[in-house]
């Protein structure tokens, strides 16, 4: 183990939001993290895994429900002076020029004017924004805007730089350039920072940049595993050991939750009841992925990293679809592979009407909420039921927003399968076919 000083330490962090019914929604649990000097630590996970929440706790923008965060040995209440943040959508003030945007953090510290000027210009220079000082953010491309975001964070000379998916709003080429520039500055020690925490949902980005990667699981957010990246910089995506790490992380992320960990949790997919949150994945996306996996070269069994890069889907897009297929028993997801079931293969070959029949069978068999709605409609003489009835039932298990989204998903699937109909104008489920 290295003996570098510890910049930041999180102990047993927990974050929960109160629900209207008095219960609480747990978003982050049992979180332990240490950041040593000279390290880039990556928080890798899908949206909803609590990685951004953790970053905000560290930034002092939110308070943990339990646990401790200490920065250089001192507990944190509110934003600390030595921690600065780079935002996903840049968060620049559109009414300030590049220079003013960079200087604002120093203005807030009430530093002498000359010093502000010197440091701001130095940061602008360092990050490659020379000549853009008097431009407004609107005049800049996305990449240049994010450079301002970096300069603004670096100018306050933070010890720790927090980055919240800083490259995900940029196009592939720009992101690559910016990443490389950042890594160059970092490895040459030209930035005044001592440690970095990077939130990302891009597996390759995490491996390219980080010394350690914490893989997050969802509901509630928790660390599934920690992966050390020992590869020397600069790293090569095509390097076999790089690919091996990619494969390994995919496997970690598709691992079935162990029995003990899942006890008492609203797990998102396997073995679900009425109260599980359904993903917003349209039948068309499901069909699309089924077809892609069924076709050569995969022929029914696809390696996730491979099909992800073939379809140009990041894990944030790929995983929800793959997991929906698993939930519908159209495919098995394990060990970083997606393998079609017999019905999955049949679906991929079938025509539209046959697809609808297969989808209907699986929907009613494996999505308890859909089966429940259908049963209620069948039992009633009027064959209709108000939406609010199901919302109320769902809200015993999940937040209002999740209940709304879950119903939206099931309506979409039910309509595709022609299992039931829904009228949005009066918010009533029924069994009618449109006239």
């Amino acid at each position: 183990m290295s003996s570098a000083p510890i910049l930041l330490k999180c102990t047993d962090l927990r974050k929960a939001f109160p629900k209207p019914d008095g219960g609480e929604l747990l978003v982050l649990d049992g979180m332990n993290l240490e950041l040593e000097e000279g390290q880039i630590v990556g928080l890798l996970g899908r949206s909803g895994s609590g990685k951004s929440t953790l970053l905000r706790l560290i930034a002092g923008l939110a308070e943990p429900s339990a646990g401790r965060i200490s920065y250089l040995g001192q507990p944190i209440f509110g934003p600390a002076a030595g921690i600065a943040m780079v935002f996903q959508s840049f968060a620049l003030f559109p009414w300030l020029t590049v220079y003013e945007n960079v200087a604002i953090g120093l203005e807030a510290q009430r530093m002498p004017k000359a010093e502000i000027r010197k440091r701001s210009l130095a940061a602008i220079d360092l990050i490659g924004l020379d000549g853009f000082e008097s431009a407004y953010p609107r005049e800049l491309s996305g990449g240049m805007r994010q450079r301002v975001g970096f300069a603004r964070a670096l100018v306050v000379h933070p010890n720790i730089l927090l980055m919240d998916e800083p490259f995900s709003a940029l196009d592939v080429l720009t992101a690559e350039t910016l990443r490389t520039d950042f890594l160059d500055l970092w490895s040459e020690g030209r930035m005044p920072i001592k440690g970095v925490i990077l939130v990302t949902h891009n597996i390759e980005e995490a491996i390219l940049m980080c010394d350690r990667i914490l893989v997050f699981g969802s509901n509630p957010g928790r660390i599934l595993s920690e992966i050390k990246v020992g590869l020397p910089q600069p790293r090569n995506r095509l390097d076999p050991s790089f690919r091996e790490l990619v494969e390994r992380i995919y496997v970690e992320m598709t691992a079935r939750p162990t029995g003990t960990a899942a006890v008492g949790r609203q797990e998102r997919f396997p073995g679900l009841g009425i109260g599980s949150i359904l993903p917003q994945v349209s039948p068309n996306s499901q069909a699309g992925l089924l077809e892609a996996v069924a076709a050569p070269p995969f022929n029914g069994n696809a390696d996730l990293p491979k099909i992800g890069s073939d379809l140009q889907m990041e894990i944030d897009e790929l995983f929800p679809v793959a997991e929906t297929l698993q939930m519908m028993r159209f495919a098995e997801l394990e060990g970083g592979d997606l393998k079609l079931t017999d019905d999955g293969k049949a679906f991929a070959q079938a025509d539209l009407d046959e697809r609808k029949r297969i989808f209907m069978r699986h929907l009613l068999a494996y999505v308890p909420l859909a089966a429940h709605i259908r049963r209620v409609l069948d039992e009633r003489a009027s064959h209709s039921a108000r939406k609010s009835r199901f919302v109320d039932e769902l809200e015993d298990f999940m937040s209002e927003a999740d209940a709304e989204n879950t119903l939206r998903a099931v309506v979409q699937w039910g309509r595709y399968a022609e299992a039931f109909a829904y009228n949005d104008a009066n918010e009533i489920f029924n069994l009618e076919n449109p006239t």
Partner: protein
Amino acid sequence: MSEVATRRFGPFGFLRDLASRWDLAAFVVVIGLIAFLGEAARGLFVPLSQLEVTPMSLDPSHLPEYAARTTLRMLAALGVSLIFTLTYATWAAKSERAGKLLVPILDILQSVPILGFISVTYVFFMSLAPGRVLGAEFGAIFAIFTSQAWNMAFSFYQSLRTIPTELSEAAESFRLSPWMRFWQLEVPFGLPALVWNMMMSMSGGWFFVVASESISVGRTTVVLPGVGSYIALAIEKRNLAAIGWAIATMLLVILIYDQLLFRPLVAWVDRFRVEQEPGAREPQSWALTMMRRSRLIQAAKLAFHAAVLWTSRAVKRSDPPPPDAVGPKRRSDLLWVSLVGAAVALGIWHLVAGVIAGTSLPEALHVCGLALITMLRVFILIALASLIWVPIGVWVGLRPRVAQIVQPVAQFMAAFPANLLFPIAIYGIVVWRLKPDIWLSPLMILGTQWYILFNVIAGAAALPAELRYATASFGIKGWLWWRKVALPGVLPYYVTGAITASGGSWNAAQVAELVTWGHTKVEAKGLGSYIANAATAGSFHRIVLGVGIMSLFVVALNRLFWRPLYYYAERKYRLT
């Protein structure tokens, strides 16, 4: 200007419920305050008789001076409204506790037809400086303020509540002090919406400034030199030529205001917009370009910027204490609730003492009947104006070149104080002996119909080109096209315009239902003329009763009719 018209803001803020306890409390507090002012004014009435009267002249050569004074009043009121906006809205947005009451109060105030109440506010302000014109000036400025401030405050409140999370987090993470945060984040973010609402306010403001410069309070007539009092004198003297001069002057004044104040402002605040969709044409202003190049303006700008930075340095950020201070919060909650309770009790007491004790049930019922008549008028007029302007607006909106010409004209017409045009209509009614109950009614909508027009134009212009190509390629035309494409497409815009038009018409009723031409009085039966008569007679019970019932009607109409319609249109027909 068409850019501006397409940028819309919900007219109701965040209030979506039908009514809550807080709404009720707000209503009682506002009407109670009005009753209190009415009561107070009655006691202060005497010293006004010796008010020095400034002699007015109908000579057109005085008009520039009168116009300048009218404009100054307008600017002063705008300044007061701005200060009110920055404080009241900030308080409402920052303190959850205060916001619960302050926001409904704003909503009620927006619905109070303050025009009929001007005489009362005059008396109140003049009592502060008895026998001086200054008091009357304050009264006028206050009256204009009441026509401008509420929607400005609402828009700023809305902005404060919708600051993008990341910007707010950035400010927090870079440890900006609350003062710095206010000037560097909150004010700039709220500016575009605020400027747009200021422009809307100005339209109402011109109407008020004209109406408030010549006011009869009982036996006294207060005259403040200005375009409004000039036209009042012209009416008294039955001088059509002078009225023509006044109208021409006002047109010029509004044009100058628009070119020198609002165009530059609109072009300037474009920089403060957070959403930066490409393709939208930047608003242009020759005046702004000039000002940007002027050294004087540059110096002023730098000075302001330095002041913001300097004060930011002076006000230190205090880091939040470790969270364990729960006790004092409970206590201050309790204090707040009891304060609100006291205000509500006071409101009820003034209502009972000031209005209910001074009037009878039959009188109140009679006033409700009059309100129904005025309501009928407003609805018929809105329907008629819609029949005319919706087709025209759609036609214009679909033709960008025509819209470029018509849209600024429509917005200009909305800003023009319609009451200046009343004398012409009255002249017609008197000369041809027309029936006032019918022929006075169009005056109510004379100034407000333009909101329907320019909103519909904006709506039609916003119809996506692809949608229009699609309808053309499927051969959808005629009535089917109107029913399935044009009308649903512009509905959300139309509703916004109709809401503004309806609100303005209620207010205008108070000057449109009772008009004079020399010594001839023309009156239409309705709540507006009731209030106007009460004001002329200096009968404060009846003013408060009339204004209170009108507020009740406007609030109820908004809650039961316009608001549901607005959200329905937004949800179902919004194209985004």
